């Protein structure tokens, strides 16, 4: 049988991937335009909506780089087009690698890219990875309207409580990513603390000296500063940590 990577990196798969990429961007634009028009109809100031655009665009740059790194990690085994799409649609790097490995295992191959990783095993990985994630969109299509109307009722009844509920859920999410660096210590903890300190200083400067533009960039500055601290301290503590 021909090398499966010829299938995985074939022109046809690149074409499908490109089509899906364009569709996903178009769908994002449709949502954007729908919300923007409704915002104008409701009289939300354009400046406020632009602030949302600017801050989200700036915030999204640095956290997208690890996605590119997972793509680079998956490409030698799964080719470029399939991981590209899996990481852009409904995906996350950790799930994709797990599901791809499972696809190989059920075909009797020890892992990704191992001996005997044939086109048939590649095909089974693509089936498993795809069918495994299909539950979320199905649930959303059938149930999100009902779930959302439940939350809307809470909001209509007591919007102060709804505000607290939203922030509590969000603090729950944040905590899950703060916990491991604290319990594991080392460079992770140093990075976490550096990010926190730079963010606090930026916020202080922004408020004290009324540097409005800093608000949108504070988070990115803090991230880049903390990542630089990770490099600096891992060199300083080489062999110690």
């Amino acid at each position, binding site marked *: 049988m021909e090398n499966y990577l010829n299938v995985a990196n074939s022109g*046809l798969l690149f074409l499908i991937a490109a089509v899906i990429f364009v569709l996903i961007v178009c769908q994002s634009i449709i949502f954007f335009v729908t919300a923007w028009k409704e915002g104008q109809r409701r009289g939300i100031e354009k400046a406020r909506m632009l602030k949302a655009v600017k801050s989200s665009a700036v915030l999204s740059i640095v956290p997208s780089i690890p996605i590119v790194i997972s793509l680079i990690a998956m490409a030698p085994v799964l080719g470029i087009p399939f991981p590209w799409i899996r990481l852009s649609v409904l995906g996350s790097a950790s799930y994709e690698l797990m599901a791809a490995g499972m696809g190989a295992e059920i075909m009797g191959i020890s892992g990704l890219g191992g001996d005997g990783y044939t086109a048939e095993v590649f*095909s089974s990985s693509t089936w498993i990875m795809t069918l*495994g994630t299909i539950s979320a969109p199905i649930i959303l299509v059938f149930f999100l309207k009902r779930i959302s109307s439940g939350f809307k009722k809470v909001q209509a009844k007591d919007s102060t409580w709804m505000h*607290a509920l939203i922030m509590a859920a969000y603090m729950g999410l944040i905590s899950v990513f703060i916990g491991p660096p604290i319990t594991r210590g080392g460079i992770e903890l140093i990075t976490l603390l550096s990010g926190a300190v730079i963010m606090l200083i930026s916020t202080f400067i922004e408020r004290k000296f009324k540097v409005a533009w800093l608000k949108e960039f504070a988070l990115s500055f803090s991230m880049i500063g903390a990542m630089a601290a990770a490099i600096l301290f891992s060199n300083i503590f080489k062999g110690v940590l």
Partner: protein
Amino acid sequence: MNDHGLKAFDDKIHLTGRLTMSIGALMLLAIPVIISLRWNIFPPFGKIASGVLSLSLIMVPMAFAEIFTYAPILGSGATYLGFLTGNLSNLKVPAAVMALEISDTDPASEDAEIISIISVATSAIVSAVIIFLGVLLIVPLSPVLSRPELKPAFDNVLPALFGALGAYWIMRNWKLAITPLVITILVFLAADVPTSAMIPLSALLSVIAARILYKKGLL
């Protein structure tokens, strides 16, 4: 602004969401189908079915838990788009909450739905473009991004992001932050629980604690 307009917009968002979600799911399915048809490789049905079944035993409850965690934060439209484009916890949700804050929007208001959609759509487009650039430039980029000097930085993107986010939001909501922080630190000290399973649990316990504080008038 009238209720009729809000209802009409809500219906429109659900229609758009259901359509885009269905199209997205079909497009994803097209990939394995086309690979099988074009190269005539059909992996054994029974093995695939049992693999999918065992994955679904984890994925279906997880999907429900995630939807219940993110839907109140994001609102309907941004939830559809966020799930469609993925990377919710590390990208879309922090972006949306920060956008609400920077645009002075109460997260529990009707306007929050609009701001969240604008934010998640922007984030999705920026992220898609960066991934696309990664695909285009994969050959020159690979050696740069995998340089050993840069490894500590890229290994620690999440602590960098959440250190900054944590400092900002804990300062503003320390009462709400105590419970989930203490619980997650205790859990992670005891066992290495997968993050994806811990998020809904932490969010649920955090909301329960918030409810108790709210009832006692302590928030």
